[in-house]
């Protein structure tokens, strides 16, 4: 981890601590809790997309595996939530290996299709296996989390808890990048053939990073289940997988920070838009949740066409350019 990243984490943590005092309302804090689940998944996904050059269209399925493991084991078998989370992680790892080993051995983007198929199958099973998963009716009364007998039973408490987890996840991800395997991964992204001929086992690294990204999503899914206290197959479909990819791509796939920014931005965007629409309600403009899809699609397309490095890099470049412009002006003035 570089000094910049340490500074980044410190600044990020300060913003996280201050935010709830500024917004106050429980409902908005709840929105930020949802943003945290997306953020956690996206950090994992950005490792895969940015550093292994692979795309997964089935990450919502790993969220689902985590969420359903937690829900089923705690509600039906009475397990401790923490043990259930661990089992969810183990399941996600097994699934990631089953999908990752055959498809990442091949060159090209077979993983995208394999994960898309896998994600749909998981979704179909959660809908169809009514006796096991509750089907579309879902599972309710999932217990709230307890840390040493201290219940995390309000939005503010959950906000604090989940964002601590996210920061830990971020720390871990940034460390991976600056480790030996991180350098190997960047080599793969540059040129797979060159990396391979210089003795890097490309497929082994790719599989490892895919498994790690699945773990991130599984953890996010488990914590999601314990926050909402209710799950059904709805949030774990293809659409959510695509949304996660969108968040990473919009933020910038080549930097973990990009995923953090992209996920938070797109998570709160619908709320911002609907608040704006409430303000301008009188002028006949109404924001409907239906527009979400349209807006996400437009943003992703615009970013991919005009700013393929994502917002994070785009803003960075903009600053640099401004700086250059400024220094040049001052120097010419002298």
């Amino acid at each position: 981890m570089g000094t910049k990243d340490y500074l980044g984490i410190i600044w990020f943590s300060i913003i996280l601590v201050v935010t709830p005092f500024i917004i106050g309302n429980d409902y908005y804090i709840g929105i930020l809790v949802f943003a945290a689940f997306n953020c956690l998944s996206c950090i994992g996904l950005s490792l895969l997309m940015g550093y292994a050059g692979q795309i997964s269209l089935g990450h919502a399925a790993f969220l689902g595996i985590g969420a359903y493991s937690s829900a089923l084991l705690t509600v039906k078998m009475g397990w401790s939530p923490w043990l259930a989370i661990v089992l969810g992680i183990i399941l996600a790892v097994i699934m990631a290996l089953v999908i990752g080993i055959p498809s990442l051995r091949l060159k090209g983007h077979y993983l995208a299709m394999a994960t898309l198929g896998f994600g749909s199958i998981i979704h179909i099973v959660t809908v169809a296996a009514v006796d096991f998963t509750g089907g579309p009716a879902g599972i309710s009364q999932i217990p709230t989390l307890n840390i040493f007998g201290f219940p995390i039973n309000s939005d503010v408490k959950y906000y604090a808890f989940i964002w601590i987890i996210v920061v830990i996840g971020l720390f871990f991800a940034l460390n991976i990048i600056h480790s030996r395997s991180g350098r190997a991964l960047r080599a793969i992204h540059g040129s797979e053939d060159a990396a391979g001929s210089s003795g890097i086992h490309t497929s082994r690294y790719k599989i490892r990073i895919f498994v790690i990204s699945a773990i991130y999503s599984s953890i996010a899914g488990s914590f999601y289940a314990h926050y909402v206290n209710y799950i059904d197959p709805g949030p774990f479909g293809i659409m959510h997988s695509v949304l996660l990819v969108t968040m990473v791509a919009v933020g910038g796939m080549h930097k973990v920070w990009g995923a953090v920014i992209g996920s938070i931005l797109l998570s709160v965007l619908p709320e911002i838009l609907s608040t704006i629409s409430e303000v301008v309600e009188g002028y006949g403009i109404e924001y409907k949740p239906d527009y979400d899809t349209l807006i996400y699609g437009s943003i992703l397309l615009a970013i991919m066409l005009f700013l393929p490095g994502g917002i994070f890099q785009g803003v960075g470049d903009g600053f640099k350019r401004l700086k250059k412009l400024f220094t040049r002006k001052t120097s010419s003035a002298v």
Partner: protein
Amino acid sequence: MNHSNQFSDLLQFVFMGIQRGSIYALVAMGFNIIYNATGVINFAQGEFVVLGGLIMVSMTTMLHVPIVVAFFLSTLVVMIAGVIMERFTINPVKEPGILRLIIITIAVSILLKGIAMCIWGKDSYHMDHFSGDTPFEIFGATILPQTLWIIGILVIIVFFFILFFNHTMIGKSMRACAINRDAARLVGINDRLAVMYSFAISAGIGAIAGIIITPIIQMDYGRGALLGLKGFGAAVVGGLGNSIGAVVAGIILGVIEALGAGYISSHYMDAIALLILLIVLFLRPSGIMGSSEASRLKDF
């Protein structure tokens, strides 16, 4: 349950499978055309199917356009959408990395889905069958006139497809681009134009698939992803890029799916085709009909 009863049940499931499979076959053909021209899997392929179906419903039930006219008009509109997509999102990308192009097609698919949702809402739309819904009876099983329409249209499209790629100048130049783009450019073929044609044709075939299936499945904005995915399954099983393979694989997938629904469990019907997709992807990525040598060169 006696033997004749068992046979008629089997036949019933096979009819159901051919009907579903024909749609997968058409979607798979669409994937292949664009894949051959660009080397990219177009994730928006399923949305063309949805657009075709929904535009057809609006034209026939709200504007009361005669079915034949509406059929061609809807196909044309979606073809134009395909060309717009190519001109504005694929063509301008100067250094087309595959990952970036894939994400662009994903973006277009979200966008098209969003547009469909804003225009038609989330309701599912039903439309009358082309020529009534009184079934024919064959050996105790029944088949809908609409199913015959679907099979007939598939056959006609395959026929025109072969004609187009073997006997027209544009078709031949598109094939040349698919085999070796650089070489094609050297002999004076405009490869960028070939890409545009491929989007137009692919969108048109997708639209037709949507139009003919809508009377049976009640179309809504969200059906694109699953239809596209199963069509992709057919394309992979048939060997990516091989259109005749795609047709055969599509029908096989449809029939296996229907038999699975009939004899194992109807709940997991949608999962069956996807499971076959995964198995083929892992064991024989060149497809059951593609040569493994050719696929090694491909790098989507």
